[in-house]
């Protein structure tokens, strides 16, 4: 009954949007490079040895990719980058397993989880292709949170909050894994099809921008009995640059079994400025 009503709501929203003529228009031209592009950048004022936000941008060209929906994203980061040693993920976001099966969930902001579990904030753009061929761009915000440590794996929880036009809230599960050098770890997010949506539309991710250790992240702690907000330290940079810069990799899996990957190299930020001695 609930499934029927949810499917009905999704269908009604899609029909209403189609009637309003909200068609895709905001998608830029296809890239001359591969169908998947990855870029990663630190803060403009980042310095070796300091903490920074890590801005990751993933762009996909649906016209040059399989029509099957994307079902997994793996993002590998360099070994020397301090993700675990950062101040990120000081609380755990735990959601019932059924959320990750239903995918489409209802719930408060952050799914009721502590803001101290937020590790990254970002945005996403997807194309929703209806069965009649109409394509609607959907904009969403993305929140990556630390999940529970289970069976030796560090869990992740990802919330995708549609902002316009659909406004659906999606929950995905993932984990962080150790990987072989030159990478130090890999963020894995599993994105199964949204039950009830398969027969109505195909959703293709076009762009994902995520900032690990974003400056917009606020944590809260008790100081002298008062709740005080602070910005947690972001990704910790090493004091020396790895050979040939910081190397990142993204691997994307689709529901038809096909895979795509892309790599990016981020040049070294300047070395830490020597503190003024005052002498």
């Amino acid at each position, binding site marked *: 009954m609930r499934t029927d009503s949810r499917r009905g709501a999704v269908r009604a929203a899609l029909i209403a949007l189609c009637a309003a003529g909200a068609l895709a228009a905001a998608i830029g031209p296809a890239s001359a490079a591969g169908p998947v592009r990855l870029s990663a950048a630190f803060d403009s004022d980042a310095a070796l040895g300091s903490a920074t936000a890590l801005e990751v941008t993933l762009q996909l060209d649906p016209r040059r990719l399989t029509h099957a929906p994307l079902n997994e994203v793996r993002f590998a980061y360099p070994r020397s980058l301090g993700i675990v040693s950062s101040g990120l993920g000081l609380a755990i976001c735990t959601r019932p397993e059924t959320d990750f099966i239903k995918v489409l969930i209802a719930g408060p902001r952050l799914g009721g989880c502590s803001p101290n579990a937020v590790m990254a904030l970002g945005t996403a753009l997807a194309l929703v292709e209806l069965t009649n061929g109409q394509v609607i761009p959907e904009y969403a915000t993305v929140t990556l949170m630390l999940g529970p440590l289970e069976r030796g794996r560090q869990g992740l929880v990802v919330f995708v909050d549609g902002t316009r036009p659909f406004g659906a809230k999606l929950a995905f599960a993932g984990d*962080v894994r*150790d990987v072989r050098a030159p990478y130090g770890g890999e963020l894995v997010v599993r994105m199964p099809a949204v039950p009830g949506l398969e027969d109505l539309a195909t959703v293709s991710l076009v762009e994902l921008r995520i900032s690990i250790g974003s400056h917009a992240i606020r944590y809260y702690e008790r100081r002298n009995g008062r709740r005080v907000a602070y910005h947690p330290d972001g990704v910790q940079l090493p004091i020396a640059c790895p050979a040939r810069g910081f190397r990142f990799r993204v691997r994307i899996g689709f529901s038809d079994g096909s895979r795509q990957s892309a790599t990016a190299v981020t040049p070294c930020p300047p070395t830490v400025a020597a503190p003024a001695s005052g002498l």
Partner: protein
Amino acid sequence: MQPQSLRRRGIFVVTAALVALMLALWAGGVSSAAPSAHAAKRKTLNLTDTAYLHLTRKNGNVIYEKGTASGTLPGTVTARLVTGVTKVSGTVTFHSSGGGTITMNAVGYPQSASTVTRFSGNIAVRKGTGRFRNALGSGTFSGTANRKTWAITVRATARLTY
């Protein structure tokens, strides 16, 4: 006369070489017996210590810690720890108040992901200096780490020979 002199000199050289070889073999035998004699003098120590460490600096995924230890062998401790997703490994050096240092490899595994996370793991004594210069041993540890401040409390038990 000259050929005879050369022959004698040759015999002398061969004899000298043989003597030198025998001396070398004898010396080698003494030398190889030395460790067992030394091993007989080795002491065994079962130690249980609690250490309180604080962060001194970070270098990417590596954290450096320093602190004090109390228990069987009181002293100070320094550590260099490489933080991975599911394990932390590194080198811990214990400076005994009574002199000598013990350097050990440690591998720890987090058991939770909250601000104050519990962990446990194993240590292998790798080397030492002073009275612990031939230290060997192994043990286990457990403790807590505050992932905001990186203040670490660790209780270690180990069996050490030196």
